[in-house]
C-alpha cells in the first residue's frame, strides 16, 4: 500500500510531461484543429520513436513491457499535453488484438502499429450512445469464408487516418446481451464502408460509419467467433479508464493555469486569489481533480495487477465525467471574460476535457454499472 507514484512511474511521468510540453505546443494543437487535420504526423512519429505505441505490448513486436498502470500514466500526460494524435483509438484496438488475436494476427498488425506505420480505430457505439453490449445491433452474417457487416456505428474516434477498425458486432442474429458478439477487424477502405464526419466541441472529428454489406475475410475475426462479448467489454473498459486518465491530466493542467492566474490577476487592489471566495473555489477544484486522479489510479493499479476492475473503472468514469468539467468550469469562472475567447489557451483544455466527459458512457450509465457491482439492484420479481 502506497498510493503515490513509485520511482519508475514518476520517471515515466516526468519524461512524458517534458516531451509533450515541448512537442505538443498549443501552436501545434491549434494548427491541427484549424486545419481539421485530426492529428499531426510528425508528433505521431516522435511518439512512436519513444516506444509509446508499444507500451505494454510484447517486446517481440517491438513493444515495451510495462504494467497497464504505466500506459495509464502516459495517457494522463497525453491528456495534460492535449496531444493531437489518435493514440487512444489505436492503443485500445491494439490491446484488444494483442489480448484476443491469434499469433498470426498479432504479428501482422502490432509491429506496424508500434512503429507508427499503422493507425487503428475501434467501433463500438450505436444509435442512442448506450454502453451496454445489449445495445450492439450491427449484424454480421457469417459465411463460409467471410463475414458480412451491415449497420451503423457512431462516435468512432480517429477513423479518418486509421488503416483498420475493430468493429464490435452481433454475429448471431437471435442473440442478445453479451451473447453472439464478435470482433471483426475491418479495413477502412473496404467496399461498402462509408463514413459521415461528426465534428465535435473538442475540435476533433468522430465518424458515423455506414456498413452496407461490407464483406470481411473470416481471418479478420479477432478472438473467438460469437464468443467475444467478454473481450468487447474488456476493450470498452480499457478505453474508458484511459479516457479518464486523459481527463485527469487535462484537468490538472487547466486548474494549475487557473491557480497561476489567480495569483497574478488583480482586482479591487489585490490578487483575485486572495479573496476567500476564490480561494475556496480553488480548494474545491483541486479536491475534485485529486479525487478523480485517485480513483483513476486505483483502477489502473487493479488492471495492472490483473484484478477485476469493472467497478473501479465505472466509479472513476462516473466521477471524472462530472467533477473534471466542474473543476474546469470553476476555472473559467475565475478567469472570467478571457475564458470564453478562442485566442486564450485555457479553452483548448476545457473543450477537450468536456468532450471527453461526454464519451464512452455518461455518469448515469456508469453508475448503473456501479449499482450492479455493489449489489443493490434487486432481482427482477417474477
Amino acid at each position, binding site marked *: 500500500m502506497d498510493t503515490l507514484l513509485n520511482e519508475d512511474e514518476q520517471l515515466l511521468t516526468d519524461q512524458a510531461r517534458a516531451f509533450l510540453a515541448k512537442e505538443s505546443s498549443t501552436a501545434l494543437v491549434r494548427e491541427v484543429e484549424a486545419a481539421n487535420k485530426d492529428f499531426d504526423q510528425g508528433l505521431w512519429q516522435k511518439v512512436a520513436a519513444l516506444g509509446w505505441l508499444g507500451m505494454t505490448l510484447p517486446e517481440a513486436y517491438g513493444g515495451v513491457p510495462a504494467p497497464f498502470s504505466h500506459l495509464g500514466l502516459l495517457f494522463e500526460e497525453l491528456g495534460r499535453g492535449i496531444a493531437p494524435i489518435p493514440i487512444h483509438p489505436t492503443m485500445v484496438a491494439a490491446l484488444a488484438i494483442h489480448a484476443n488475436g491469434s499469433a498470426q494476427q498479432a504479428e501482422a498488425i502490432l509491429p506496424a502499429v508500434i512503429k507508427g506505420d499503422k493507425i487503428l480505430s475501434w467501433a463500438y*457505439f450505436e*444509435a*442512442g*450512445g448506450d454502453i451496454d453490449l445489449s445495445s450492439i445491433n450491427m449484424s454480421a452474417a457469417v459465411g463460409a469464408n467471410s463475414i458480412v457487416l451491415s449497420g451503423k456505428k*457512431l*462516435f468512432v474516434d480517429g477513423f479518418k487516418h486509421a488503416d483498420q477498425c475493430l468493429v464490435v458486432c452481433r454475429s448471431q442474429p437471435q442473440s442478445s446481451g453479451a451473447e453472439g458478439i464478435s470482433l471483426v477487424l475491418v479495413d477502412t477502405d473496404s467496399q461498402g464502408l462509408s463514413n*459521415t*464526419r*461528426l*465534428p*465535435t*466541441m*473538442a475540435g476533433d472529428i*468522430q465518424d*458515423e460509419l455506414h456498413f452496407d454489406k461490407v464483406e470481411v475475410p473470416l481471418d479478420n475475426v479477432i478472438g473467438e467467433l460469437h464468443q467475444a462479448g467478454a473481450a468487447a467489454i474488456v476493450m470498452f473498459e480499457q478505453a474508458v479508464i484511459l479516457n479518464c486518465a486523459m481527463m485527469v491530466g487535462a484537468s490538472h493542467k487547466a486548474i494549475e493555469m487557473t491557480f497561476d492566474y489567480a495569483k497574478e490577476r*488583480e*482586482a*479591487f*487592489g489585490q490578487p483575485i486569489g486572495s*479573496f476567500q*471566495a*476564490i480561494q475556496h473555489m480553488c480548494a474545491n477544484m483541486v479536491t475534485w481533480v485529486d479525487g478523480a486522479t485517485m480513483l483513476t489510479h486505483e483502477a489502473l493499479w487493479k488492471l495492472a495487477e490483473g484484478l477485476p476492475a469493472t467497478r473501479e473503472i465505472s466509479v472513476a468514469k462516473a466521477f471524472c*465525467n*462530472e467533477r473534471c*468539467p*466542474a473543476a474546469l*468550469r470553476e476555472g*473559467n*469562472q475565475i478567469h*472570467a*471574460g478571457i*475564458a*470564453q*475567447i*478562442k*485566442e486564450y489557451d485555457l*479553452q483548448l483544455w*476545457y*473543450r477537450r476535457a*468536456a*468532450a471527453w*466527459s*461526454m*464519451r464512452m*458512457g*455518461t*455518469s*448515469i*450509465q456508469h*453508475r*448503473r454499472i456501479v449499482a450492479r457491482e455493489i449489489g443493490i439492484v434487486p432481482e427482477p420479481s417474477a
Partner: protein
Amino acid sequence: MDFGYNEANERFRQEIKDFLTANVSREFRAEVREMQGKGMGPLTKALILKIGEKGWIGMSWPEEYGGRNADRIDQFIFEEELVRARVPLNIGNFIEQAPAIMAAGSEEQKKYFIPRLVRGEVTFALGYTEPSGGTDLASLRTRAIEDGDDYVINGQKTFTSGAESASHIYLMARTDQDTPKHDGISIFLVPIETPGITVRPLWTLAGGRTNEVFFDDVRIPKTAMLGEKNQGWYIGSKALNLGRAGAMRYYTYVSLFEETLYFARSNPLGQQLMDDETARDKIAELYCEAQVARLFTLRSLSMVRRGINPPYEISSEKVWGPEFLVKSTEVVSQILGPYNQLWEGSDLAPHRGAFPKRYVSAMVSTFGHGSTQVMRDAIARRGLGLPRGSI
C-alpha cells in the same frame, strides 16, 4: 399574491406572438446565421425598426420619453416572447442605458437619443470593461483629457459585445486621475464611427463575437458627456443595476433547459433518452429550479412595479440564473452523452449543435455584468446586513 397574467396581458402576448410569426421568416434566420459576428444584416435592421414602430422598445417608459407608459409586465412578456422565438436581438441592451440618459442627460441628449432608441435607430455597445479589470470596473484606465471644447480619449475597452453593429459606445473613461477611483469617472455617448476608434473582433468558443475597442486620440465634443463630470460611476452603476432585471436575462438562463425539454418531449432520440427514470428525475429537478429563476424575476418585477428598489433580490436572480444555466448544461451533457459534443455541421447533432454551444457559452452569464461572487457579496452585505471584513 398574484401569479397570473390578466386578460390584457394575455392579449398582448398573443399580439407579440402573431407579430413574430408574421415577421420572423426563414430568410431572417438564415441571415442571422450568415451574419454572425459580421454586424447586422438588412432583414435584422428592418425587423428592429418594425419593432420600434410598434412602440415595443422602451414601452414602459413615460410618454414624454417616447414610451407608452405600458405596464412593466407587458414589457416582460414582450421580452420573453422575443427570446422564446429565438430572435437574437438583445433589445434589452439597446435600452439599458436609456434610464440613465433620462435621468442625467441634457435636454439635447434626451431629444436626440430617446426617440431613436425607442425606434431602434440608435444602439449602444457598453464600453465599461478594460483588459486590466473585469469585475473591478472602477479601476478603469481609459483617459479622457480636456482640450478646448473637446475631450481626447485614449485607452482600450474589451468584451465590448455588439460593437460591430452598434451606432454608439456608452463609454466610461477617467476624467480625473487624482481622485479616489470611483470619483474620477465620466460617461460619454460616442458615435462608433468617430475617427480613432478601432473595433477588433474577439471570437468566442460558441462561434459568437465580442470585441476589443481601441481609442487613439479620439476627439469628441464636451456635449457628448452624459451628466456631470466625474459622476459617471454613479450614473453607470444605476444603469447596470436596472439592466440586471428583466425577462431577457431570465430567459437566457432557462432557454437551454426549455430546449432540452422540447427535445425530450418531441424528438425520437430525446424520447429514447427519457426512457430512463434517472434521466427523468434530473430533468424534473432542473424544471423545479428553472421555476425559481422565473419566479425570482417576477419577484423583482413586482417590487419595481410597486416602486420598491430591491435590496438584494436582483442579485439573487443573477446568482441563481447563471448557476442554473451552467448546471443545466452539465446535467444535460450527462444525459445526451456523445450527442452533446456534436458541433454544428452534423445531421446527428440535436438542434443543429445547439447543446455544445450552450455548454461552452454558459459560463459567460456567471461573470458578465457582475460575477456571481460580487452578487453574493451584495446579497450578504446589502440584503442581509452582514459586515464588511477587515482581513
